[in-house]
C-alpha cells in the first residue's frame, strides 16, 4: 500500500484476532475504513462485532494482529487514539445520579474542554436528540430510549474524529430510531463512523460500505448495492392467483428449479427469472392473477445466502 493510501485511512486492521479462553471471537480480520466513511459491521449477536470495536477503542488487547486508528498503533499509542475517538458502547453507560449536563460535562472535561465550550456543545446536542427539556433531571429516572440517546451524544461532546457506535439504536422505539438515524446521517463525511448493528435496515439506510461478519470472520464486504446484486443472481417471484390447478403447477415445475405452492400463492425461484414470460403463461392457462411481484433482495437474503443462517433468531 502506498503512503498516500494509508493517509486516507481512518482505520486499518491487520489480521486482528481475539480469543477468549480458547474461544475464537474475532478470527483475523483485515479491514480498511476510509476517512469520512460510514462503515457498518452487520452480523447476528455473538458474531464478533462488539469485540472488534472494543479492540479498536483500546478496551481489549488483541490476541494477535494489530490495527491502526488515525495512523496510531493500538498497542503502542493507545492514549493518542483515545484522544481522537468517541465511543457509544452497547451497554447504556451513563452516570445514573447525574443529570444530562453533568454527564456530558464529565466526558467533555476529561477531553480537556472548557466549561463554556462544554455547555454550548451540550445544548446543541441535547436539542438535536430532544432531551433539552429534561436535561436537569437525574438520568436514573429516564426511559431506556432517553438513556440511549444521552449515551449516544456523550460520544460526540468532544467532537471526535472517529465515532464508534455499538448498536446505536438498540431498544429505541421506531420514532426515536428515525431521529437517531437522521442525526447519524447528518454526521456523514464530517466524521468517520464505524457502527455495528444487527438491524439490516439500519446498515442498509446509513452505510457507505457494509461488512457482513459471522463467527468472527468477514464473509462479505461492499456497498449495500454490491452485496444485494450478489443475491439477485437468484430471483424470487410471488404470485397470488385464483383457480390454480395441478397441471399448471406441474408445468411450472418442469421449467423452474424451485416452485412452491401455498393455497393461492405460488413462489417461483430461479436465476434470471422472466416476469412477463410467467404472467403470459398463466394468462394463457386462464388463471386469474390478483398480484405478481418480483421480490427485491434484502441484506437479510444476502446474509442467508452466504451463511445459511437467519440474521435474527
Amino acid at each position, binding site marked *: 500500500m502506498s503512503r498516500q493510501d494509508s493517509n486516507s485511512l481512518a482505520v486499518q486492521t491487520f489480521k486482528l484476532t481475539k480469543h477468549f479462553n480458547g474461544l475464537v471471537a474475532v478470527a483475523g480480520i483485515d479491514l480498511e475504513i476510509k476517512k469520512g466513511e460510514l462503515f457498518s459491521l452487520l452480523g447476528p449477536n455473538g458474531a464478533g462485532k462488539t469485540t472488534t470495536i*472494543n479492540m479498536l*477503542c*483500546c*478496551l*481489549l*488487547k488483541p490476541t494477535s494482529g494489530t490495527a491502526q486508528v488515525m495512523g496510531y498503533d493500538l498497542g503502542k499509542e*493507545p*492514549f493518542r487514539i*483515545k*484522544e481522537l*475517538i468517541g*465511543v457509544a*458502547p*452497547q*451497554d*447504556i*453507560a*451513563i*452516570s*445514573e*445520579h*447525574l443529570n444530562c449536563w*453533568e454527564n456530558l*460535562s*464529565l*466526558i467533555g*472535561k*476529561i*477531553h*480537556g474542554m472548557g466549561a463554556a465550550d462544554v455547555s454550548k456543545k451540550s445544548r446543541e446536542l441535547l436539542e438535536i436528540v430532544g432531551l433539552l427539556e429534561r436535561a436537569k433531571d*437525574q438520568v436514573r429516572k429516564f426511559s431506556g430510549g432517553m438513556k440511549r440517546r444521552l449515551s449516544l451524544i*456523550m460520544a460526540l461532546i468532544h467532537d471526535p474524529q472517529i465515532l*464508534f457506535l455499538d448498536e446505536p439504536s438498540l431498544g429505541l422505539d421506531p420514532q426515536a430510531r428515525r431521529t437517531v438515524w437522521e442525526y447519524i446521517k447528518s454526521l456523514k463525511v464530517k466524521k468517520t463512523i464505524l457502527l455495528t448493528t444487527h438491524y439490516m435496515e439500519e446498515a442498509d439506510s446509513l452505510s457507505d460500505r457494509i461488512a457482513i461478519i459471522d463467527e468472527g470472520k468477514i464473509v462479505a464486504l461492499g456497498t449495500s448495492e454490491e452485496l444485494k446484486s450478489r443475491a439477485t443472481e437468484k430471483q424470487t417471484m410471488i404470485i397470488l392467483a385464483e383457480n390454480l390447478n395441478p397441471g399448471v403447477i406441474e408445468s411450472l415445475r418442469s421449467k423452474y428449479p424451485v416452485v412452491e405452492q401455498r393455497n393461492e400463492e405460488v413462489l417461483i425461484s430461479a436465476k434470471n427469472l422472466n416476469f412477463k414470460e410467467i404472467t403470459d403463461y398463466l394468462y394463457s392457462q386462464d388463471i386469474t392473477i390478483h398480484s405478481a411481484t418480483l421480490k427485491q433482495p434484502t441484506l437479510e437474503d444476502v446474509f442467508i445466502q452466504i451463511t445459511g443462517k437467519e440474521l435474527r433468531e
Partner: protein
Amino acid sequence: MRFLALFTRNFKETYRDLLALVFLLGFPLIFMLLMGLAFGGETTPTFPVGVVDQDKTPVSQAFVSEALAEVKALEISSYDDPQETLKDLKLGDLKAYIIIPQGFGNQVYQNWQGMATNITLNITYDESDIMVTEQVVSIIGATTRSFAKIEVPIMLNSSPIHIETKITYIDFIGPGIIIFGLLILIPNSARAMVGDKEKGFLARLQTTPVRPSEFILGYSLSFVVVAIVQIIIFVVLARLFGMDIVGSPWLALLVFFFTSLCCIGIGMIVSSLTKTVNQAEGFCWFISMPLAMLSGCWFSIELMPSYLRSIAYAFPFAHAIDASRGILTRGVGLGEVSTDVYWLIGWAVVSFAAGIILFRRSMAR
C-alpha cells in the same frame, strides 16, 4: 485536571445515592450508638477486684489507692491473705484479684526515671466469664501502663500523685470502634468502582484518555471526603459518650486519616480484582471482619497467641488501634506512636500503588 472531573462525578454519585449514604454513615453510626449506650456513661459495668499488696512500698500503695481505686469499672477491696481472695473468687464475690509482688514499686520507679523495665503483676481471674475477664485484664493492664508513665517529683512521699486518666470502658473501646467504622470504607469504596465496572460505565471512561492513576485518584478522593466526615462524627459521638481525649486530638485525627487511606487503598485493590458488586462486597466483608477482630477493635489482643499477634501487626489496623488508644487514653505523643504511624503510611502508599498497578493491568485485557 481529569481526576478532578472524575472526583466531582464520583462525589455526586455518592451523596446523591441516599440509600448508599445511609449505609455509609448510618451503619457505623448505629454501631457507635449501640456501643456507646451499652458501655458508655453511667452504665459502666463494675467488677469487684481484690488486691493483695506484697510490695508495701509507697508506690504500690499509691497504685492501689490512687490508680486502681479511680477506675470506675473496678470495685477494689484490699486483702492481706491470698488464700482469702482465692476463696472469694471461688464464691463469685470477686471477678479477679491482683497480687502486687515485691519489687513492683521499684520497677515502676525505674520507668518513671526513664529506664524501661518490665512490670510484673499477678492477676488471677475467673475464666468462666470470658468477656468480663477480658475486660478486667485489659483495664488493669491499661491502668498500670498509664500509672507507670506518669512523671512525678522525686520526693514521692511529699507530693500527692495526680492521675490524669480514669480509664473507663468507653475509653478502651472507643478507638477500636472508630477503627471498625473506618474499616467499612473497604467494602464501600470497592463498591463504587466495581459498580461502574458492572454497568459498563468504567468501560466507557476507559475509551477516554483518563490514566490509571487518575482513575484511582478520582475514585478514592471522593471517599477521602466521606472518611473525613465519618471521623469527625465518630470522634464527636465517642466524646459525647464519655471517651476522654487526653493526648493531641489532631494527632489522633491524623492516625484515623491514614487508617482511612489504607482502607480506601485496599478497597481499590479489591475492585481491581473483582467483576461484580456482589463479588466485591463478599470479598471485602470476608477480609474486613476478621481484620477487625484480629486487630482488636472489640477487645485487647494482648491475650492472643503470639503468632496471631504477629499476623495482626502485619496489617495496619492493630497499629492504628494501638496508636489511637495511646494518644486518646494515655496522652502519648508522636514520638511514641511513630512506628505505628509509619506502618499506616507505608500501607497507604503500598495499597494505592498496588491499586494503580492492578487497575492498569485490568485496563487492557
